[in-house]
């Protein structure tokens, strides 16, 4: 299906609902959302003000759903929504918005700005105004199976290595187990130790699990780009596989957008509730910790801080698990000022990290300075997080600025310090 302006506008008309109408009518142009946006704060450019990023959506709303706006359009007084406008807004809607949702936390009139960005992206995708990088990732997810073009043999290889390293067997396509374990391509390529860590923890906890050869990828580029039809196809792979294998639960990997996709958007995309439960790996680990199954042999000594991934914490609602887990394994955990649901984004969520134009990369590096300051002000050399995408973006930032910071994944950190 080819993308056209007409389709884009039709889609925007379809996604506009009462919350969006209420939000757009409530905005008083106070500009406070800019103060919550890392792209505005680190560049000082007012075009990055979150509410301004929604201008095409606002115009469609006004011209289609308000009496005065319809009248203005009829007599030719309305500002047009055309390909030129949408192309200009591409940078604002994708490169400079990670859908971190911090703006929604501060808006005094209660506008859920990130909710509207997500909807605007539907229109951007339908009209063909999307960044090449995310488009490629989406195409690879649909055609090959994952955003990085990974196929099952690569996963099978990681499984083999994890089995050899842990001495445990990692089942594949096994029905009637407790958990179907999902991965993200980033983890498979960059952090294969995650799977080994999980195998160890599951073994300790006596929890049964499997991987599925036809549904291993948890991320969903369809959601990031804003194409619900594609997102539905991608999420359906997991749903079909999990329901065929009759698993009780599906385990979302650390990856933030994967969690958003499978836990919150998935049922809405397929139009029905699942026959299984979705659990984020940290929720499971915290549950095991509470039950006393996770026994730590020795604590990590160096002082460290935590980076809360937006999609898991602020937008996903996994608020309570991270801190007790880090406190269980680290002797010197230092809580930072803007943490948990007020944390600052790494700068590369929402598909932004897949955009590799020079401008987008330079902007990401600038936006990272807010994270850099958080690290420097805390005076530590170690940061822990629990999202593969955050890890990649933060590591790029650390390299870019030549920082002396070691970055660790929470699940692996826990696994390393478990009692044998």
């Amino acid at each position, binding site marked *: 299906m080819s993308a056209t302006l007409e389709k884009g506008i039709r889609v925007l008309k379809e996604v506009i609902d*009462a919350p969006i109408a209420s939000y757009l009518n409530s905005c*008083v142009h*106070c*500009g406070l959302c800019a103060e919550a946006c890392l792209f505005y704060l680190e560049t000082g450019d*007012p075009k990055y003000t979150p509410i301004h990023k929604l201008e095409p959506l606002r115009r469609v709303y006004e011209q289609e759903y308000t009496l005065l706006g319809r009248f203005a359009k009829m007599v030719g007084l309305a500002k047009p929504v055309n390909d030129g406008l949408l192309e200009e807004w591409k940078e604002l809607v994708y490169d400079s918005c990670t859908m971190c949702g911090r703006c929604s936390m501060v808006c005094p009139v*209660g506008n859920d700005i990130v909710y509207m960005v997500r909807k605007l992206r539907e229109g951007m995708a339908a009209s063909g105004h999307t960044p090449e990088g995310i488009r490629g990732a989406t195409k690879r997810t649909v055609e090959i199976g994952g955003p990085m073009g990974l196929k099952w043999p690569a996963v099978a290889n990681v499984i083999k290595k994890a089995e050899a390293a842990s001495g445990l067997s990692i089942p594949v396509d096994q029905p009637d187990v407790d958990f179907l374990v999902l991965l993200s391509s980033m983890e498979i390529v960059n952090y294969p130790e995650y799977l080994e860590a999980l195998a160890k923890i599951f073994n300790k906890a006596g929890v049964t699990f499997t991987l599925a050869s036809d549904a291993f990828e948890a991320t969903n580029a369809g959601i990031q780009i804003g194409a619900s039809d594609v997102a539905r196809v991608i999420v359906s792979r997991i749903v079909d596989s999990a329901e065929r294998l009759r698993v009780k639960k599906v385990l979302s990997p650390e990856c933030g957008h994967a969690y958003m996709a499978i836990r*919150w958007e998935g049922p809405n995309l397929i139009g029905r*509730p699942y026959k299984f439960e979705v659990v984020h790996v940290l929720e499971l680990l915290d549950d095991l910790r509470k039950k006393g199954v996770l026994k730590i042999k020795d604590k990590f000594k160096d002082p460290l801080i935590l980076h809360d991934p937006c999609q898991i914490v602020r937008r*996903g609602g996994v608020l309570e698990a991270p801190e007790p887990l880090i406190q269980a394994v680290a002797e010197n955990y230092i809580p930072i000022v803007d943490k948990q649901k*007020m944390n600052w984004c790494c700068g590369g969520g929402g598909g932004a990290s897949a955009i590799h134009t020079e401008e987008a990369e330079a902007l990401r590096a600038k936006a990272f300075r807010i994270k850099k300051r958080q690290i420097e002000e805390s005076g530590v050399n170690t940061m822990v997080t629990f999202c593969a995408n955050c890890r990649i973006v933060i590591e790029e930032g650390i390299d870019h600025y030549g920082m002396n910071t070691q970055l660790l994944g929470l699940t692996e950190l826990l696994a390393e310090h478990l009692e044998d």
Partner: protein
Amino acid sequence: MNEMQFLTWVRGTGMDIALSIFVLGVFWRLFEIYSLGRKLDIAPGRHRDGASGWHTIFRRSVPPPGMVKRSPVTYIGGYVFHIGLALIVFLFVPHIIFINSVLGISWPGLPSQFIDMVTVITMAAMIVVLAHRINNPVKRYLSTFQDWFTWTLTFLPLLTGWLAVKHLLLPYTTMLALHILTVELLLIFLPFTKLFHAFTVFGSRWYLGKINGHKGVPV
């Protein structure tokens, strides 16, 4: 038309027109917005949503941590002129008498010297937030004709009301008539400009609280 006829007109026909447009406008706009409805979230909620929407209606009146420091003028100026407006509109005795004549309900008011002071402070706060809108790069960037227009619509009734009470500039009758006229303009434009946030702010906060409460995030 002499000044007495002018006053009579704004109190009678003028007020009838303004109130009719205001009331019909508010109902129409609320219908236009909220009849769009929304799809309910099928994903099972983290906890029961409960009253998360109502909580957010109240919680959002308090600035999030660190925000007052980032934008003190917006917050302090905003609080002062909103609270000031509410005190003046609803607790100045002549206003209560007017409301009583329209709706038949009444309540005790505040001493007029106090309202006088509140009016001066409110006008000062409004001038400060206007200056901020002109000088702050983000606000200036976001501002359209409506922002300047609605500021004027809100400021004029304050100014004319204060001048009328103080018997300044113009004869009392003329100033009072002008005051009522500016209030009528405010009423007429309120439903069709950003001033309508006075109504939608509750719906917006409620949706925000509900949508995020479903995921287990108090906002």
